[in-house]
């Protein structure tokens, strides 16, 4: 049985539908992420799970029991708020002890559990400090310790890394993964950063305008996006209008605007004449000088328009002879790397016939 199950959850604010018939289930012990742009409904969903909002329709089942009638303080679910929400008039220890006190634990248990929790987040020496004396990253950890100390069934995290600078954010991401593994509590994480979601999660639910567009493991979401939104939102991708010329066994022959004929792996429900988009990741594309011959079917000539050198990789923007513009990503220190291209060089781009996806409309 899934730990948390959402069935047909809908929430409206007047005419605006914030959450539109969302169903999903979360397994115990997993790091689950709700990912989407602002306004997609992920925070609203989180608040309903925590109990601060009630759905207009649908059920929320925790361990199989409907918790809609349970107020937040009675749900075994804790939240790490975006602003951390540490109690300014209590020390770090007192903050972390708070849920234990509410649960009625005795003083020895409390001091032991608080100490362990602070050690888990490497903040043992700050036990008697007040929140205003801590840095952003430290406050974050106190919020985590406080949310985990009495091992709730579920820990909800509402964009907790949003206020941190880039380097600190990366460090905290690693720590979060470690922490979740160690403690074993199920995390439900909300973020608008797709890179963060890919890095941290066991499974991701990509949301847009109140609906779940795709729910899967990160690699599947990245490699096999199910529609235009997911393809565009996750990572970088090249996308072009396409029409199915022929749908044979395992293969599609597409007519792609500005490019020509492209071979792509077959997609669900794509039949001859179907309209949609062809999408391919920049790192799946190979660039070679025009003269080289190639066995690959998807092979198009063009000219280098511009490139972006970022130390570890270079992104080449190529104007195809047929009209479209395509981005290709090449690592700068791959062994056997043919050459570095300049603006204006005549090149050819190519990719395998099973790379890329067709997204039917």
């Amino acid at each position, binding site marked *: 049985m899934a730990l948390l199950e959402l069935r047909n959850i809908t929430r409206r604010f007047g005419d605006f539908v914030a959450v539109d018939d969302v169903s999903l289930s979360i397994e115990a012990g997993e790091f689950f992420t709700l990912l989407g742009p602002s306004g997609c409904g992920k925070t609203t969903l989180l608040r309903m799970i925590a109990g601060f909002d*009630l759905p207009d329709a649908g059920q929320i089942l925790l361990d199989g029991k409907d918790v809609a009638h349970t107020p937040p303080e009675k749900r075994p679910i804790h939240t790490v708020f975006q602003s951390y929400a540490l109690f300014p008039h209590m020390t770090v220890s007192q903050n972390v002890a708070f849920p234990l006190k509410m649960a009625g634990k005795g003083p020895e248990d409390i001091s032991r559990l608080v100490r362990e929790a602070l050690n888990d987040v490497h903040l043992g020496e700050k036990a008697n400090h007040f929140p205003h004396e801590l840095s952003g990253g430290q406050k974050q950890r106190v919020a985590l310790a406080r949310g985990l100390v009495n091992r709730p069934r579920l820990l909800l995290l509402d964009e907790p890394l949003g206020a941190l600078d880039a380097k600190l954010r990366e460090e905290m991401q690693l720590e979060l993964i470690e922490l979740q593994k160690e403690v074993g509590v199920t995390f439900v994480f909300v973020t608008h950063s797709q890179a963060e979601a890919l890095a941290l999660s066991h499974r991701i639910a990509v949301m847009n305008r109140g609906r779940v567009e795709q729910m899967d493991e990160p690699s599947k979401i990245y490699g096999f996006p199910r529609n235009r939104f997911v393809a565009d939102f996750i990572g970088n991708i090249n996308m072009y209008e396409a029409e199915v010329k022929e749908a044979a066994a395992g293969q599609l022959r597409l007519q792609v605007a500005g490019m020509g004929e492209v071979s792509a792996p077959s997609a669900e429900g794509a039949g001859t004449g179907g309209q949609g988009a062809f999408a391919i990741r920049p790192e799946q594309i190979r660039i070679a000088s025009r003269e080289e011959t190639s066995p690959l079917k998807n092979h198009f000539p063009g000219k280098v328009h511009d490139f972006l050198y970022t130390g570890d990789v270079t992104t080449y923007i190529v104007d195809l002879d047929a009209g479209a513009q395509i981005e290709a990503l090449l690592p700068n220190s791959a062994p056997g790397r043919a050459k570095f291209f300049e603006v204006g060089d005549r090149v050819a781009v190519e990719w395998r016939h099973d790379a890329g996806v067709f997204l039917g409309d």
Partner: protein
Amino acid sequence: MTSRADAARAHGLTRWLVSTPPFVFLLLFFAIPSLIMVVASFRFPGEFGGLAPLVPTRPGEEAGLTAENYEVFFGDWVYFQIFLKSFGVAGITTLICLVMAYPVAMLIARSPKRHRDLMVLLVILPFASNFLVRVYAWMIILGPMDLLFSRFAVLLSMVYVHLPFMILPLYTNLEKHDPALLDAAQDLGANGWERFWRVTFPLSLPGIFSGSALVFIPVLGMFAIPEILGGKDDWLVGNMIKESFLGTRDWPFGSMLSIMLTLCVLGVAAMAAWLAARGVKRA
């Protein structure tokens, strides 16, 4: 969904518990007395002062409602003049307070953070002294100089008593100004005066309006200062009201004057709010 209704009901109960006591108290001792005064302004004065009953208790007694108080007011130029004088005094007081408050507010806003609280405290402390004491102080100073019981004394005292009310809102506003704006103005060629007039002053308008309202409105209702420091000539609306209630004991007339004063105050407050909103849009 029932649970939403449950949650709303529990929420509503707390709301009732918290809101009701102050509400009831103020209803009883503020709202209702105000309404009674409105009605009182339409009644006859009692035989021995106060209010005449609504229903005659003796034959031939004046009772019931009448508009005669308002008729007297609008009929005689004298009352309008006193209102005008009060507005005048309030206006001049406000202006002088503004001119005096601005340098202080600016100084505090530009001082280093750690000094500011102290400087603000120094502004508030005189306010902590009793209002009458502050008036009495000027009696001592002006007495030997023969300046007592004059318009000058009244104005001086009015300014003195209300100055902190202008300084504080002005300071609160000025403190929020972004110093980079002045740097930008200077960078683009504005000199000291231009920077003040074109950047600081317009941005401070909301503060000016709040402060002005906090000075203008109390001055309108003042009676103690004109009474203690002014001559017979310097009577303002407040004096007339006081005289009606405690002197001639013509309560309906006093109530009518109070209603007229209330309307003026509401008018000024509404205008200040409108100006403040407009100033914000412009800035």
